[in-house]
């Protein structure tokens, strides 16, 4: 009977090689030695969307109650062990070769490779995020600057028009007044009105741009918060499973992509100085309103002659026609319209999305004798 152990002992001595892998379970406070890895704890992450749908995905987090360390040793022989882990700290592959020339430094290399990959991944992610943040900030700054410049330009145009009108008015009753002063004053008044409209539109656009960025990035705004995903812990028994909430579902600040600013809706009266000379039978008998958006309808709401409301009798109505480009409206006064200063108040209708909007436009017309 004593011969068999003797034979095994001899066999071991002849071969001279015993390779052993040792995996130890670590208590939460145990210091890690060798390569450590975790078994996963399963969660279901439920991500709600504002339309009431959810996305449910299982996620696997390292379970601190299942942490293990890997070590290996060889007696009188060489071995190679290559332990690769996933980013989560789970085992990926274990390659064990007890008869190669590798040494235990492979263990260190695996750990170093893993840490290097972690660092590179983190740095790349931070770089991408910084680039995105900078692009968004640059776009916001450019949009706000453009809106501010448009407002400033429009304000300057108002000042210029106002100065011109003031100057012409100051000439009235003086020897320096030209014969066409009244016409020039009427034209300057129209130009001032147009500049004021443009300035108002620029102000609105600037305010809208500022509000868009302000509201889109304001922290704590109720409308710009969203509930975070819910983590449900999967707890298993041999014949059942239970889901329990891992964290409370809190609200978090969110952000929405800014909507590109649209061109302001503008209605421009051409020519600026509408002076009609029926007797001359020239092309100046009509005026044109040009819009930056397609016009879907119009309505003459009132007409004044020399400051007095004129009855909208059919025979005295201006003839209004929408042109084929749908952005021009031709307005013609009857040829026998009596001389005077007329004011025509129109409402022009256009579509903004699915809603019909109306814009008030006043056209001043001087009909000469």
């Amino acid at each position, binding site marked *: 009977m004593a011969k068999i152990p003797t034979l*095994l002992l001899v066999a071991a001595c002849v071969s001279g090689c015993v390779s052993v892998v*040792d*995996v130890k*379970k670590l208590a939460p406070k145990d210091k890690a030695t060798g390569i450590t890895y975790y078994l996963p704890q399963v969660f279901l992450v439920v991500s709600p969307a504002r339309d009431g749908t959810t996305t449910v995905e299982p996620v696997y987090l390292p379970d601190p109650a299942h942490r293990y360390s890997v070590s290996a040793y060889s007696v009188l022989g060489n071995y190679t062990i290559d332990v690769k882990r996933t980013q989560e700290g789970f085992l990926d592959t274990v390659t064990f*070769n007890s008869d190669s020339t590798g040494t235990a430094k492979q263990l260190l290399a695996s750990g170093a490779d893993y840490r290097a990959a972690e660092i590179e991944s983190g740095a790349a992610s931070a770089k991408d995020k910084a680039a995105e943040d900078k692009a968004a900030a640059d776009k916001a700054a450019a949009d706000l600057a453009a809106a501010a410049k448009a407002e400033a330009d429009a304000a300057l145009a108002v000042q210029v028009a106002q100065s011109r009108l003031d100057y012409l008015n100051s000439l009235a009753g003086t020897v320096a007044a030209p014969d066409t002063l009244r016409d020039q004053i009427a034209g300057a008044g129209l130009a001032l009105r147009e500049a004021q409209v443009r300035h108002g539109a620029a102000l609105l656009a600037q305010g809208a741009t500022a509000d868009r960025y302000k509201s889109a990035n304001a922290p704590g705004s109720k409308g710009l918060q969203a509930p975070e995903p819910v983590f*449900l812990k*999967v707890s*298993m028994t041999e*014949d059942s499973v239970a*889901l329990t909430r891992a964290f409370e579902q809190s609200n978090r600040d969110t952000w929405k992509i800014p909507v590109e600013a649209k061109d302001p809706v503008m209605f421009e009266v051409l020519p600026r100085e509408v002076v009609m000379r029926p007797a001359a039978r020239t092309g100046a008998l009509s005026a044109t309103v040009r819009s930056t958006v397609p016009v879907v309808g119009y309505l003459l709401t009132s007409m004044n002659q020399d400051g007095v409301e004129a009855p909208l009798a059919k025979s005295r109505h201006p003839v209004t026609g929408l042109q084929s480009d749908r952005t021009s409206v031709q307005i013609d006064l009857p040829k026998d319209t009596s001389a005077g200063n007329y004011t025509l108040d129109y409402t022009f209708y256009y579509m903004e999305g699915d809603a019909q909007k109306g814009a008030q436009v006043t056209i001043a017309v001087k009909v000469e004798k």
Partner: protein
Amino acid sequence: MSFKHLAVAGTIALSGCAGLTTDSPSVAANATNDGFRYYDTSPFLLITNDAKGGLVSKILYLPDSTKLRTIKPYSFAAKNEATLTFDKGTLVQAKSVVDETIVPTAIVSALEKVATARIKAANGGQDGIPSPYLFRIYGDDAGNWKLNGGQALDGTTPIRIRYTAN
């Protein structure tokens, strides 16, 4: 020791032994086991809503924490080249094919119908999105397939998932 005995010893030395050992340790035995731990997978039925009054289901094969396993390569006087591949705590090799055939397709379909009918009867009329349901699919000793599990709970109350910041 005779020449015959030396010859036997030499034969053992040249052949040696190497391979993989596996085990299914209990919680207590896991503390002293020295193999690579992993979980076997088990099938689960996940049921979610589609926000249109319907339910959507799919089978998940999850690492089963009640099925702790170990595997260990060893080498005694021999070569041993072993590669173990894991995925999320499970041993992938020789497992994926087996897992796909654990639950026959027809049984999965039948179990889905049972589960969705049960959920439809219990659901409705509340604010918030109903939390998902997860059922373990398992077979009993008599060869019957069963579902066990349910909806996510806070205590005994089903969790509702907010989708607005109210």
